[in-house]
């Protein structure tokens, strides 16, 4: 499989100012690395899940790939072409190949446009003059399993699940090659989120697109992702094939996340591992291994030395001084 998207050592930095921004900026300016050197690849027809908790930088990563945030360092290659630092004018034609879905199903739809206008907007933006928009609208709605009479509705007349489907229809309108999906199941009930995941899977089989899913929900990851990467404080601490990571996590944080994901079974036995404290702020990164203040297995070395990337097999890696193979 050819690599569709290759991200290397990406760094996205925001300036944080104490005090309200104004013309007189007497407050001290500080920089925070929301994404601090992240690398990943997505191949055609493959799904990669980026898993992390709030503040881990996963949304920033997706938005930087989509060119919505400026990345200071590293590279983003799409089909071999460097995207980072591309002028908006050069980037624009490429955008039809990279579709993005946002967290809020209803809020990511322009509120004063009808569903038909919304899903056929990509044709107008990318100048597909030969298309019959009415026909396309019906085709797209059918593709995501909505009836044609949804075309005249406004976003506020849609349920979360329906709005999500409209979002998928719009994202796939101009046949993108890569789909960036930021928390695609956020705000959906369990009974509905399956529908969306099934739909995404079906469309991926049919269209062969690469998907990057950003999520905090490990249950979702298991069913949609070929590979998964765990993000902590803007860096990946572990990556590997989904099945292998679930079966035998190497990094204690991965293990903690898996343990923190209770199954709906009162008798289920878990490798109980509970983290202490809360995630540190990226403004104030711990020394050594950044996870050590919360790690139940931390030793002296962890506080001083930054762990390097280990590759036990060709398709896995992790950053930990004391990796253990946890059998679940």
């Amino acid at each position, binding site marked *: 499989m050819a690599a569709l998207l290759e991200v290397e050592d990406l760094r996205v930095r925001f300036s944080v100012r104490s005090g309200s921004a104004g013309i007189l900026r007497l407050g001290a300016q500080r920089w925070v690395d929301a994404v601090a050197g992240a690398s990943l690849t997505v191949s055609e027809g493959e799904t990669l899940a980026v898993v992390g908790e709030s503040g881990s930088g996963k949304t920033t990563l997706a938005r930087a790939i989509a*060119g*919505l945030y400026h990345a200071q360092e590293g590279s983003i290659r799409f089909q071999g072409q460097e995207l980072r630092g591309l002028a908006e004018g050069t*980037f624009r*034609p490429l955008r039809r190949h990279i579709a993005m879905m946002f967290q809020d199903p209803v809020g990511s739809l*322009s509120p004063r446009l*009808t569903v038909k206008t919304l899903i056929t*907007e990509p044709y107008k933006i990318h100048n597909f003059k030969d298309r019959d928009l009415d026909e396309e609208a019906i085709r797209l709605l059918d593709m995501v399993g909505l009836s044609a009479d949804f075309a*005249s*509705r406004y976003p506020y007349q849609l349920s979360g699940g329906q709005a999500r489907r409209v979002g998928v229809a719009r994202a796939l309108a101009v046949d993108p090659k890569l789909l960036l999906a930021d928390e695609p199941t956020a705000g959906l009930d369990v009974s509905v989120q399956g529908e969306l995941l099934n739909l995404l899977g079906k469309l991926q089989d049919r269209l062969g697109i690469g998907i990057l899913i950003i999520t905090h929900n490990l249950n979702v990851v298991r069913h949609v992702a070929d590979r998964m990467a765990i993000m902590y404080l803007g860096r990946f601490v572990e990556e590997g094939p989904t099945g292998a990571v679930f079966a035998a996590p190497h990094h204690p944080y991965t293990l903690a996340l898996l343990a923190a994901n209770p199954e709906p079974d009162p008798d289920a036995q878990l490798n109980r591992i509970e983290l202490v404290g809360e995630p540190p702020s990226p403004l104030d990164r711990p020394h050594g291994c950044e996870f050590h203040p919360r790690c139940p297995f931390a030793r002296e070395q962890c506080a001083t030395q930054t762990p390097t990337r280990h590759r036990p097999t060709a398709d896995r890696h992790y950053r930990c001084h004391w990796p253990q193979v946890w059998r679940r």
Partner: protein
Amino acid sequence: MTYKTRSELRVILSHLLRDPLGLAGLAIVAVVAFGALTADWITPYDPIALNIMDRLQGPSAAHWIGTDQLGRDTMSRVIMGGRVALEVALPTIGGALLIGLVLGMIAGFGPRWLDNLIVLLLDTVRSFPTVMFALAVVALVGPSLQTVIVVIMVTSIPTYGRVVRTQTLALKSNEFILAERSMGASTPRILAVHMLPNVMGPLAVLASMDIPTVIALEAGLSFLGMGVKPPTPSWGAILNDGYTLVRNTPWLVIAGGIPLIVTTLEFTFLGESLRDVVDPKLRKQR
């Protein structure tokens, strides 16, 4: 469930018709607008024709609300005054709204330094007390309709500019705008198709609430003799005539004041009612 998609205008109209105060506002505003449009035909006398023989007459069948110290028919002057009020209010607010819209959008969507610059400029102009500033300009160029329009317009721009900027900034980081950008929509397209419709609602409300303020300002300046030039009839000028002659002709003070108060009141009611429709928070509940 079936959804009827009604046009925005019909939603607003049907709301206004159900709200008694909004309806009253709409009616009076219509009357004033009608009077202003047809003033040339419906005024019983020439509002500026002098007729010293008939000066300071009380209400009668010939002159319903009497005449002033120069014998001009007060009724005709009041009707014409409505036209002057709107002649000042509409271009003033239209201009301020347009300039404010452009500046606010540039500030909200443009680079940080431009935003800072525009905000500083708006804050500066906002800090001129309107009437004081108007008086300073009038002192230089003399009173006239144009002066009043330009001065009030300039001092009104910051209000609109700031509202548009705040709205634009809030919308800019909204997911639907990010979604448009990720699809490759150009900045002009985002501004025109996605920002403008969402900014216009609150702006229209602000403008309709501003009309009474501007009408009152014009009348106030004319009352001071710093607004429209005599003999142009303005409600403020009629009030001033009445003020100086209050002992002989109390009807003049009433004739100038009542239409002014009623008009500003009804415009305000209309604006309040409009806000109830446009305000998204209230709208969700319906």
